[in-house]
């Protein structure tokens, strides 16, 4: 069930350092929203506040509200563990569990949530691998270690693992930055398919990628070294890349600074 995310007045810290400040935006369901901006502008930090992974970092803390439909992720009494089950995440470097097989990797999240019959489990694993466009490549070696796959396959395995628990939202933190162009293309196609079912947020350094895969794009920037990152603007991707309303966005996109 894809859900809408409504962020208001969100500020995140590392210890006493303010990493991002006062961000408000809405992420539409069943669409792809891309975060772009120069290195260190806090877009990854911001992404990690959306499934409460930010607070895993020592000293990490967050102020503000993140509404998932009508529930605030940061309300008291909300369990970060169930937040992360509802909001899945794919990381920059593919990180399949090295000691688990392909099958076990995909089933890992499900197994956490109670006991499944074997047939049920293999159903979900098959569906998830198909959903990640990986099934045909691995169906004959589901019991082989996941670490034996190529980088692009590993990343799709991680996507399969993330969608197997049926999250509402899928966060992707530069999912293609460690991959070659062909694998990147495969992932981008996959993102296009997945947005039919999930709300997708993707952080990317690659502006062409943002233009290719996303429906809406948010541009982040920081005022200066040591300053917190801020949301400059968010709009339809087409508009951001053709006719942004803020000068800084245009400068960044046209490569005048970075």
């Amino acid at each position, binding site marked *: 069930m894809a859900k809408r995310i409504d962020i208001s007045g969100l500020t995140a810290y590392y210890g006493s350092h303010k990493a991002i400040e006062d961000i408000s935006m809405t992420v539409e369901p069943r669409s792809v929203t891309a975060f772009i901006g120069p290195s260190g502008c806090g877009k990854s930090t911001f992404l990690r506040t959306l*499934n409460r*992974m930010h607070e*895993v970092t*020592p000293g990490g803390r967050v102020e503000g509200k993140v509404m998932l439909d009508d529930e605030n992720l940061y309300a008291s009494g909300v369990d970060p*563990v*169930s*937040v*992360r*089950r*509802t909001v*899945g*995440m794919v*990381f920059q*470097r593919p*990180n*399949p*569990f*090295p*000691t*688990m097989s392909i099958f076990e990797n995909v089933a*890992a*999240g499900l197994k*956490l*949530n109670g006991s499944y019959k074997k047939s049920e489990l293999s159903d979900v694993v098959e569906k998830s691998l198909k959903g990640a466009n990986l099934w045909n490549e691995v169906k004959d070696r589901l019991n082989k270690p996941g*670490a034996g796959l190529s980088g692009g396959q590993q990343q799709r395995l*991680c996507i399969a*693992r*993330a969608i197997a*628990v049926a999250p509402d939202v899928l966060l992707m933190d530069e999912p293609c930055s460690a991959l070659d162009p062909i694998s990147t293309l495969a992932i981008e196609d996959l993102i296009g398919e997945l947005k039919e079912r999930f709300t997708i947020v993707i952080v990317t350094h690659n502006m062409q990628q943002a233009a290719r895969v996303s429906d809406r794009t948010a541009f982040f920037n920081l005022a200066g070294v040591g300053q917190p990152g801020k949301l400059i603007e968010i709009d339809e991707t087409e508009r951001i890349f053709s006719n942004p309303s803020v000068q800084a966005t245009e400068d960044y996109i046209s490569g005048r600074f970075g």
Partner: protein
Amino acid sequence: MKTDIEPTSTSAGSPPQVSARSTGRAGDKIFLGLSRGSGIALLVIMAAIAGFLAYRASIAISKDEANFLTAFEWSTGSTPMRFGIAVLAYGTVVSSIIAMVIAVPIAVGIALFISHYAPRRLATPVAYVIDLLAAVPSIVYGLWGALFLVPHLTPLYTWMDKYLGWTGVLSYQGGAARSLFTVGILLAIMILPIVTSVSREVFRQVPKMHEEAALALGATRWEVVRMSVLPFGRSGIISASMLGLGRALGETMAVATVLSPSYLINVSLLDPGGGTFAQNIASHFKEANDNGRDALIASGLVLFVITLLVNGAARMIIARRKEYSGTAA
């Protein structure tokens, strides 16, 4: 490298340069000789240890009227000598196993506590203190064991006897608790720091991305540990345990102070009796004549071989792990 600067030195044509170079070469030779010699000296020492122990041991065993491996006695004062290591081997193995069974789970727990559970303000000093405790001399553990631990274990043993005495293994007849089980507990306390710090190092090396993978799937802290930390650290825990085992097997003075030895195997672990290789050597050395010393050396050789095997196994596991993580990275 030297050929690079040759033109400059020849064009300058200064003889001191050339002579400096030649002393450099001689210096290099001397230095290399010294350092290689030290390495070889280490090898010679190792060979000498094995050689001399084996030589004296062979003399002793040739004079042994009893079966060296299976006899339950140790009378070396008179000729013919009768001695065997059966009781010592039993005691060494049993006390070390008890130590491992107690120490390894607790050490892994503390390592996890430091690496993943404790608040950081607590974790750093705890890790530091554990490292310092590894430095407490074994004789001090022995003194504490004999004068503090032994009297304090009596009520526990009485209690165990009441409920578990029917097993025979855990029956207790009263009296000072100077048994193999006490030795096991003391050894457990002694190897706790080393097993903890090696395991902790391994847990700290678990790549953050594996932990985040589990977290992002909605894993609780324990599930993160079970899914990414423990599988990654398994071989590290094994090798840490083996290092601890090596120490437990060879521990001398702490056992010698705590155990009340005999050359009988007592079915009950809680009652006094038995002995270990190292303890036997320390306890009987002063009264031993020349033959007796050789007999003790023979038992020391067996201990040497056992610890070599255990440590060798630990090193192999560590080496394998290095390869594994090398290819996975």
